[in-house]
């Protein structure tokens, strides 16, 4: 059976002779998801931006047009030129090189914040829908109480013992977004937890853990993925904000927030140096939001008929 490339047609067509071999399943599911994202205009945009982000981050580890520490005292706040593609900052350092190197810090922060938030969120979500009423009651109250603490406040408190550090951003974002994730994924998880298929699994002797892992998590996954993509975007924004407040990335470490913070005081005189990091942050955040939205439709076998044919 050849793969059907038309969306509308593949919905009505039922493949009766699905491949019996399960060996290539994992990899082909991944390709189907990628292909489905690529096929949508906004998905294409998101994939390109995210791929560029990753590529630039890796490249910056081995090469930047100018050394980060090469300052040119005669050319501070220079306009874009052949020597300095995006101009220079107040110390005469190359803006383009700093933004390239900043990409990897932001990627690092976004990825770790998302991993941390995902782990915490899924743990709390599972506790909230647990069949032990004590655990679920306590966790619901705890999440509701803790969620009222702003992420910025968490970061400010953490910065007291830790000082300005990448770790502060990651932990603060991880806690804040993890709590949010748990609360947002809970209704979906609850729906699955109270379903007949979970009742059926329990009746066959499935453990609470197995039910959460095999039934509840997959059913809440589309919601979780969207929320995590949004969180990655918010983490990029938070990095800029916290760095500006002085509790984020310490000076000397390249990041988009750092580039913004050092130039924002001179926005009236040299607007271009603020524009570049601002533009990059905006594009990346939009791409992440779009990515989450597309991903929700695409990774769910219920809404993506192609995934059901793998």
């Amino acid at each position: 059976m050849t793969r059907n490339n038309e969306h509308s047609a593949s919905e009505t067509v039922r493949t009766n002779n699905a491949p019996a071999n399960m060996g290539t399943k994992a990899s082909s599911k991944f390709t189907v998801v990628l292909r489905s994202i690529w096929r949508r205009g906004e998905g294409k945009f998101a994939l390109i931006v995210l791929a560029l982000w990753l590529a630039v981050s890796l490249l910056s580890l081995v090469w930047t047009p100018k050394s980060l520490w090469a300052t040119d005292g005669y050319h501070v706040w220079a306009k874009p030129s052949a020597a300095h593609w995006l101009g220079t900052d107040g110390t005469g350092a190359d803006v383009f090189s700093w933004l390239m190197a900043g990409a990897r810090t932001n990627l690092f922060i976004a990825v770790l914040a998302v991993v941390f938030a995902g782990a915490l969120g899924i743990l709390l979500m599972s506790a909230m829908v647990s069949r032990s009423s004590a655990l679920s009651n306590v966790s619901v109250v705890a999440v509701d109480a803790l969620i009222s603490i702003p992420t910025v406040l968490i970061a400010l408190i953490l910065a007291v013992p830790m000082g300005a550090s990448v770790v502060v951003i990651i932990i603060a974002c991880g806690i804040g977004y993890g709590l949010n994730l748990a609360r947002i994924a809970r209704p979906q998880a609850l729906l699955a937890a109270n379903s007949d298929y979970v009742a059926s699994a329990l009746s066959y002797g499935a453990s609470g853990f197995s039910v959460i892992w095999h039934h509840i998590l997959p059913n809440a996954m589309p919601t979780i993925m969207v929320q995590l993509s949004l969180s990655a975007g918010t983490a990029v924004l938070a990095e800029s904000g916290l760095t500006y407040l002085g509790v984020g990335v310490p000076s000397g470490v390249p990041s988009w927030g750092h580039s913004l913070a050092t130039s924002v005081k001179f926005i009236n005189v040299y607007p271009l140096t603020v524009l570049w990091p601002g533009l990059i942050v905006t594009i990346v955040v939009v791409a992440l939001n779009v990515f989450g939205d597309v991903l929700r439709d695409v990774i769910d076998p219920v809404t993506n008929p192609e995934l059901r044919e793998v």
Partner: protein
Amino acid sequence: MTEPQVLLTGNGITRIFGKGNERQTALDDVSVEVRAGECLALIGGSGSGKSTLTRILLGLDRPTSGTVTFEDESVDGSKSVGYQALRRESSLVFQSPFTSLDPRWTVAKSVAEPLKIQHKYAKIDGSDIDRKVHESLSLVGLDPNEFLSRYPVDLSGGQAQRVAIARALVTDPKLIVADEPMSAIDVAARLQILKAFAAIRKSRPDTAIIMISHDLGVVQHIADRIVVLHHGKMVESGTTDDVLNRPKAAYTRELVAAASL
């Protein structure tokens, strides 16, 4: 010929919900008995107590008074021997197939689930699981090659319910409890469900089936005995022939009329 062994009994089951003025008697002194290999139909309208009785017989709820035994062992709380045996040896078919199948699981995965869970307790070979899944699907009239890789969204109501029945069947249980398995399904597809149950009775002569329904027409071809519940009381109990052709209680006569054209 010797009588088949008694599998499940409920003796003098009474269930009262609430306290004081809010007291509601859901079941009033109901006794039932299910023997190996027989099909017992529990008939009643909404509020008749048939769901409460089912939950109690399965050990999922405790009666206010009365006892439940499974294979002569008392079913009384999740630690009891009878309860443990009942969990292992019984399976459930729910009313709506679309809420009883995980929408994100393939048919193959759903049907294999009970075996995989039990696999942890008793060693079952992987190829054995495959074989049993194939067998169960074929028995309910679904071609495994066609259906194994499908998801519930791509199934009709009748097909999805038969998948749920295959899942209930796959562990070779001694008892299958079907809770209104046809009321959420198109009339035309109900025949397929009936056929599936008939096939189970033929190929697994020792498996007992409790079928819960509000409609005598649905159970007439499949049930050996019928118990009629009304407002928590057992108003009639007897062989299918007796209940359908010589109904004694007024409520049963009403049911008979409703199931006739």
